[in-house]
C-alpha cells in the first residue's frame, strides 16, 4: 500500500501546485487515518524489501493523526500567506514553494517512517528546508537562519549518535525490532547512552528548554509566510518523534526506569512552561511573544510525554494538534496585521479591534484557547494533562499546567487590552516597516489634526482580503470545533494509538 504523504511531488513551482500538493496530502492523510481506524496499521516496505533489511513505513493511529494535523494546518497556512509569499519571494516563488514542499515532504516522512536511520534522513531534509526558509527573512533572518542551521545540525548529529549506540546494541534499525530486542535483553550502558543522545537531539529539534535558543530568532525574523508555517508544525514533528521513541522504540517503561529520559523531559518541560510563558510576557514584538509562548506550550507537550503514561501521551498528542491549530491562528493573524499595517510590535496592535474586526476576532479566539477557556481546544490540553498528572500523583505537574493558564492569560490579555480597550496611541510605532517595505503611512507625514490623534497605521488599516481571512477563520473556528470534538478524537484515535 502506498503512503501518499511522502510520494507527493516536490516540484511545486507555483502557489497553486503547492496548495494542490498539500491539499492532496491532507486528503491522503485523512484517507490514511480513516483506513487505519477501520483496518489497523498500514505497512509499506520501501522498494519491496521486508524489514529488517529494508526500510518500512508504518502508518498507525498516531502517525496518521499527526500527519493529518501537519498537512491540514500547512494547507491552510499556505493558502493564507499567498500574498506574503508573493511579496517576499517575488519572482522566486517557484524555488520558495519547492522548499515549502520539501519541508512538508520531510515532515511527512518523519511521521510515517518506522526506521530509525530513515527518520534521521527525513529530519535533516525538513530541517534543511526550514533553515533556508528562515534565511529568506531579510538581514536578521539570515543570521537567525545560520544560527538555526548550526544548532539544528548539532541536534541531528546527536540523534544520529544515539541511533548509532542503539544499532550497535541491537543490530537493527527497525523500530519495532529494536523494541523487541531491547525488551528481551538486559539494559546496558550503551543503550542508555543512546537514549540520552536521542533525547538531546530531538529535544533540540523540539526546542525544549534549554535547547530552545534557535527558536525565538528563527520565528521572529523568518518571512511571515514562513513563520506561520514553521511555528505550528516544525517543532510538533520533533515532539512526535519523541513520542514515537516512547511508543515504538523503547520498551514500556524503559525510558522512565532505566534512562531517566522521561524524568528529564518532565523536569525540562515544567521549566519550559514557566520560562516560556514568563519570557513571553516581556516581549514587545508580537512574533517574538508568540515564539516564547511556543516554547512554553512545547513544555506542556514534553510534560505529557515525560509522564510516560498512556494518559500523558494522549495529552501530549492532543496538545500537538491543539497547539498547531492555535499557533497557526495566532501567527496567521499576526501576518494579516502586518500585511495591512506593516507593524508587528504589540503596541502596533492598539485599536485594531475596530479596524480589522475579523482578524482580531480570530486572534482573540486563538488567544483565549491558549489561555484554556472551555470549551476551546486549549482547555482540553490542560484537562488531559491535569488528569495525567493526577493519575501519576505528580502534583507539581498539575499545579504548573494549570498555573500556566494564568501566565498565558497575562501576556494574552496584554495584547487583547491593546486591541480592544486602549485608545489608539499617538503614532510611535512606525519603525517596523522598513524591513518589509510595506507602505505604512500613505497619507504622508503631516499629522491630520482632524483625526483626533488616531495613528496613521490604524486609520489606514483595513481588513485583510478574503483569501487571508478565510483560512484564518477556518483555523480559528477549528480551535472551538476541535475542543468540542476532543472526546471523539481521544477515544477513537489517540487512545488506541498509545496502547
Amino acid at each position, binding site marked *: 500500500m502506498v503512503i501518499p504523504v511522502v510520494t507527493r511531488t516536490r516540484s511545486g513551482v507555483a502557489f497553486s501546485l503547492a496548495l494542490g500538493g498539500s491539499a492532496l496530502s491532507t486528503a491522503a492523510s485523512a484517507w490514511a487515518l480513516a483506513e487505519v481506524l477501520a483496518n489497523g496499521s498500514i505497512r509499506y516496505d520501501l522498494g519491496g524489501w521486508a524489514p529488517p533489511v529494508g526500510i518500512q513505513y508504518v502508518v498507525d493511529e498516531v502517525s496518521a493523526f499527526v500527519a493529518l494535523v501537519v498537512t491540514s494546518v500547512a494547507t491552510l497556512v499556505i493558502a493564507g500567506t499567498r500574498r506574503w509569499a508573493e511579496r517576499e519571494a517575488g519572482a522566486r516563488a517557484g524555488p520558495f514553494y519547492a522548499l515549502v514542499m520539501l519541508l512538508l515532504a520531510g515532515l511527512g516522512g518523519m511521521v510515517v517512517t518506522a526506521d530509525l536511520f530513515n527518520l534521521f534522513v527525513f529530519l535533516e531534509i525538513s530541517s534543511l528546508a526550514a533553515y533556508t526558509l528562515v534565511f529568506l527573512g531579510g538581514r536578521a533572518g539570515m543570521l537567525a537562519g545560520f544560527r538555526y542551521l548550526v544548532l539544528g545540525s548539532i541536534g541531528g548529529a546527536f540523534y544520529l549518535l544515539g541511533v548509532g549506540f542503539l544499532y550497535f546494541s541491537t543490530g537493527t534499525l527497525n523500530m519495532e525490532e529494536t523494541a523487541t530486542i531491547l525488551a528481551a535483553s538486559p539494559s546496558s550502558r550503551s543503550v542508555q547512552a543512546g537514549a540520552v543522545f536521542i533525547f538531546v537531539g530531538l529535544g533540540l529539534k523540539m526546542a525544549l528548554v534549554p535547547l530552545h535558543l534557535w527558536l525565538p530568532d528563527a520565528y521572529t525574523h523568518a518571512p511571515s509566510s514562513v513563520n506561520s508555517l514553521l511555528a505550528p508544525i516544525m517543532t510538533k514533528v520533533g515532539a512526535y518523534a519523541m513520542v514515537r521513541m516512547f511508543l515504538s522504540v523503547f520498551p514500556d517503561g524503559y525510558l522512565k526506569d532505566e534512562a531517566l529520559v522521561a524524568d528529564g523531559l518532565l523536569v525540562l518541560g515544567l521549566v519550559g512552561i514557566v520560562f516560556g510563558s514568563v519570557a513571553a510576557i516581556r516581549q514587545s514584538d508580537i512574533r517574538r511573544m508568540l515564539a516564547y509562548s511556543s516554547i512554553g506550550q512545547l513544555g506542556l507537550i514534553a510534560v505529557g510525554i515525560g509522564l510516560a503514561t498512556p494518559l500523558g501521551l494522549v495529552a501530549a498528542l492532543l496538545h500537538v494538534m491543539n497547539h498547531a491549530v492555535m499557533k497557526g491562528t495566532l501567527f496567521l493573524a499576526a501576518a494579516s496585521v502586518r500585511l495591512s499595517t506593516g507593524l508587528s510590535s504589540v503596541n502596533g496592535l492598539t485599536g485594531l479591534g475596530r479596524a480589522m474586526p475579523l482578524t482580531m476576532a480570530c486572534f482573540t479566539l486563538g488567544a483565549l484557547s491558549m489561555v484554556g477557556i472551555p*470549551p476551546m481546544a486549549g482547555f482540553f490540553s490542560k*484537562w488531559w494533562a*491535569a488528569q495525567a498528572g*493526577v493519575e501519576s500523583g505528580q502534583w507539581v505537574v498539575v499545579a504548573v499546567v494549570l498555573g500556566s493558564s494564568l501566565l498565558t*492569560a497575562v501576556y494574552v490579555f496584554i495584547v487583547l*487590552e491593546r486591541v480592544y480597550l486602549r485608545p489608539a496611541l499617538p503614532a510611535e510605532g512606525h519603525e517596523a516597516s522598513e524591513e518589509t517595505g510595506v507602505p505604512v503611512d500613505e497619507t504622508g507625514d503631516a499629522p491630520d489634526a482632524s483625526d483626533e490623534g488616531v495613528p496613521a497605521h490604524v486609520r489606514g488599516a483595513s481588513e485583510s482580503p478574503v483569501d487571508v481571512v478565510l483560512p484564518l477563520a477556518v483555523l480559528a473556528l477549528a480551535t472551538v470545533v476541535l475542543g*468540542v470534538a476532543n*472526546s471523539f478524537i*481521544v477515544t477513537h484515535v489517540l487512545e488506541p494509538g498509545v496502547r
Partner: protein
Amino acid sequence: MTTDSLLPIAAVLIPAGGAVLVALTTERRRNLRDAWSTIAAVALLAVMLLLLSDALDGQAARTTLLEISPGIDIALRADAAGMVFGLLASALWVVSGIYAVGYMRGEREQKQTRFFAAFALSISATVGVALAENLLTFILFYELLSLFTYPLVAHRETDEAIVAGRKYLAYTLSGGLLLIGAAAWLHVLGIDATFQPGGFLDGTTLDGAAQWGLFALLAGGVGVKAAVMPLHSWLPSAMVAPTPVSALLHAVAVVKAGVFGMVRVVAFAFGPALLLDMGAWTVLAGLSAATVLIASMLALRHDNLKRRLAYSTISHLSYIVLGAALLGPIALTGALLHMVGHGVTKITLFFAAGAIHVRTHKENVSQLDGIGRQMPITMGAFALASLSMAGIPPFVLFTSKVYLGWGAAEVGQQLFLLLYVASGVLSAAYLFPIVVRAFARSSTDHARYGEADMRMVVPIALTGIFALVWGIAPDLPLGFFELAESVAGDVFPAPVAAAGDTP
C-alpha cells in the same frame, strides 16, 4: 427523576442569541438593538417559567448535549436549586435590562453595542451555571462567565478600569483553575461528578487527604466568586464598571454564581453527611462568619457609595455561604431565600446609586444630603431596600434571616444566630445614615435635579416593591419559597443529622 427537554438549552441559547442580534445591530439603530436585549430577557423569563412547573413537580427537565470528555456529558438540568438561581437571574435581567438602557444613554457611555452583547452573554453563562448538571458543565459556564464579564468590568477603558479588569480576571480565572484541578482529580478517581442531592461524594471511599484536597479545590474555586474573605478583593475593584453591571452581575449573577456554586459543592458534591464527618463545615462556617463581620465593618468606613454597597455584598454573600455550611435543612432554605432576597434588595440599592450618578454625578455618601427630596421615588426605594437589608420585618431579608437564624439554632449553633442578629445591626449602621442624610438634611447643593429617566425609575420602584412583596409572600409569583424548601427536602431526607449533634 428527569425528563428530556430542549427547554434548558433554550434558556442558555436565548440570551446568547440575543447577544448575537445585539452585536449585529449597529450603533445607529440603537432602539432596535436595545429592543433585542429586552425581547431576549422576556423570552428567557418565559422559558424559565415553563421550566418552573416541572421543577416544582420534581420532574427536572434535562438536556444532554454532547460527550465532552469520555464519560462526561455537557448536560443541563433544571432542578429546584438551579431554578432558584436561574429564575432570579432571568427575572432581574428583565428589569436591569431596561434600567441599563436608561443608564447607558443617560451617562452617554461609549461602545454600548459591545456592552449589551457582553451583558447578554454573561446572562447566558449565568443560566448555564445555574442549570449545569455536572461539574465539568458547571466549570464550562463558570469560566465563560468570567470571560464575558471581563469587557464589562473594563468597559470604561480607563487605566483604573483596565487594572480592575486584570485583577478581576486573575481572581476568577484562578478560581476556575482550582475547579478544573478538582474535576480532573475526580475524573481520574472514576467518580461521576454529577450533582446529586446529598452529594456525589457521599458514600465514596476516599482517604482523608483526598477529601480535604478536593474540598480545598472546590470550595476555593467557588469561594473566589462568592468573595469569601480572603478571596474578596476583586469585588470592590470591579465597581469601576457601569452601574448596571455592578447591579446585576456583581450583586446577582457573578457573585451568586459563586455562592450557588458553594451550595452545589456543599449540598450536591460533598453532601452534608460527609462534610459533617470531615469537619470541613467548621472551616467554611468560620471563614464566612468572619467575612460577614469584617466586611460589614469595612462597609462602614467607605464613603464611596458603590464601594460601601460592594462590601455590604461581600458580607451578605457570606450569610448565604454560612447558611449552606451549617448543614441543616432550615438553614439551607434560608440560604437560598437569602440568595433571592439579597438579589432583589441589593439590585435596588445599586440601581438607586446609578440613578443618582446619572443625574448628579455624585458617588460619595457625604454628598447625598437632601437628595431624597429631589429624587423621592429613587430614594424611597433605596429606603425600602435598606430596611430589607437590615432585616426589618416584613421585608424579604427578614424572612430569610429568620430561616438562617432558626437553622443555626436547629443545629445547635446559637453563636451564629447571634452573628446574624449582630450583622443586621451593622447593615443598618452602614445604610440608614444614607437614608437619613437623603431625607432629613437639607441640601448643600441647591441645583434641582429631579428624578432620572423613566427607564431607570420604574425598575428601581419595581425591585424596591418586590423586596417587600417577597417578604410577605415569597411564593409570588415565582415560587422561590417552594423551590427552596424542595431543595432542602431533597438534600436532607428526613430524619436529619444536625451539625451540633456530633461531639
